[in-house]
């Protein structure tokens, strides 16, 4: 049965994010993902507080990266969270956004190797033994916690490119695919299968997760309006190969990139086309959203994540999803 997850960006006071986390649990979501960016509230403070006010929802950073937070510290944080909320913790690990990392003075080199190293160290450290490992990016020597972690924690890898998707299939328990369109999921699943096959695993061993941009409202125009700023940023940050996959003209994408670069948000958001909305978000009435979710399920996902903006009114949108969407698939 498909799982439903939800993503929150902890840009507001902790009590607002945790309010929504409690609401998500009450309304039937299975997973909660909190983004990890240095310029928002700290992900682990948010998750620890969430742990105190929830009982069953599974949660984790979605996603952290090994460049800004050393994998040993990520492991320490997750193992500590697993004591607060036993069996309810998951790790989401990605390569990080190069531009954001550059603003902190970090050069994200060898991203694929860095993620592989980080996850290898993470899994070994969780065993509670002394770890010595030399990877291409990270190495540890005789590293050991002074406490015994409770056990293994599921690892989800944030992936979009072919190599990272294959690695995710090979070493991950799940894959967080930043995509909202069946074309992207089809492509991702084909790459994940390569890694799964290489590892001698089965696809049922991997939680294939669509990490979507989502917006729901009874009035479609309101849902679309809420989603267009997010889509503008997705278009600006997407590799050209993905824009081409969806038939989006470079000229129009570059117009958005240029406007965002100048801080002209109105110009950027106003330049988002219907084709871009179709490619990069799921937005509309419950029926419209359900139809698109069905297509992603057919493409092979096993978890659907409701990502930003969720809707024009987050609280009411969560209720709407609970009433009109989740029951259609569970």
């Amino acid at each position: 049965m498909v799982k439903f997850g939800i993503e929150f960006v902890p840009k507001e006071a902790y009590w607002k994010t945790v309010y929504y986390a409690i609401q998500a649990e009450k309304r039937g979501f299975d997973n909660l993902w909190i983004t990890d960016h240095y310029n928002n509230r700290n992900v682990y403070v948010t998750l620890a507080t969430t742990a105190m006010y929830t009982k069953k929802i599974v949660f984790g950073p979605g996603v952290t990266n090994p460049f800004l937070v050393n994998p040993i510290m990520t492991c320490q944080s997750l193992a500590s969270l697993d004591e607060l909320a036993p069996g309810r913790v998951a790790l989401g690990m990605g390569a990080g956004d190069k531009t954001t990392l550059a603003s902190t003075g970090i050069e994200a080199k060898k991203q694929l190797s860095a993620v592989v190293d980080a996850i290898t160290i993470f899994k070994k450290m969780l065993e509670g033994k002394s770890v010595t490992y030399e990877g291409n990016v990270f190495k540890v020597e005789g590293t050991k916690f002074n406490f015994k972690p409770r056990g293994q924690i599921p690892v989800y890898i944030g992936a979009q490119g072919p190599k990272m998707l294959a690695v995710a299939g090979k070493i991950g328990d799940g894959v967080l695919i930043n995509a909202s369109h069946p074309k992207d999921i089809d492509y991702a699943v084909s790459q994940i299968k390569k890694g799964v096959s290489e590892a001698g695993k089965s696809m049922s061993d991997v939680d294939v997760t669509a990490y979507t941009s989502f917006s729901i409202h009874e009035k479609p125009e309101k849902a679309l309006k809420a989603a267009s700023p997010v889509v503008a940023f997705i278009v600006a940050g997407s590799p050209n190969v993905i824009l081409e996959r969806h038939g989006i003209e470079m000229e129009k994408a570059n117009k958005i990139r240029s406007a965002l670069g100048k801080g002209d948000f109105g110009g950027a958001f106003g330049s988002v086309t219907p084709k871009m909305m179709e490619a990069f978000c799921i937005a509309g009435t419950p029926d419209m959203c359900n139809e698109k979710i069905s297509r992603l399920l057919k493409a092979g996902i096993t978890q659907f994540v409701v990502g930003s903006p969720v809707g024009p009114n987050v609280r009411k949108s969560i209720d709407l999803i609970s009433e009109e969407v989740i029951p259609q698939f569970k």
Partner: protein
Amino acid sequence: MSYKKIVEMIPVEKREKLSDKLLNYLLKAKKENKMPSSLAKCFLSQWQTGGFGDVIGLAVLLEATVTVEPEKTIEFVETEMQLAEVAKALKEAA
């Protein structure tokens, strides 16, 4: 007057509408740092264990909203909800 007493002045049939509006004000409030930590914890505990539909829950929500968004809350109670006495009590409590 305590917030519990103030809530008891509100007709039962108007409480759901009030609760819905207060949550909107609170979750969209810009001056979120006005929320004291102790009240934030009380607000989250109430949401986790009971919600804001009963007298105790609505009292917690009302206190939180009056603390963070006093003008909007009192104006709504006075003009939209037509509860002048409740608005007066809230002004004194704020």
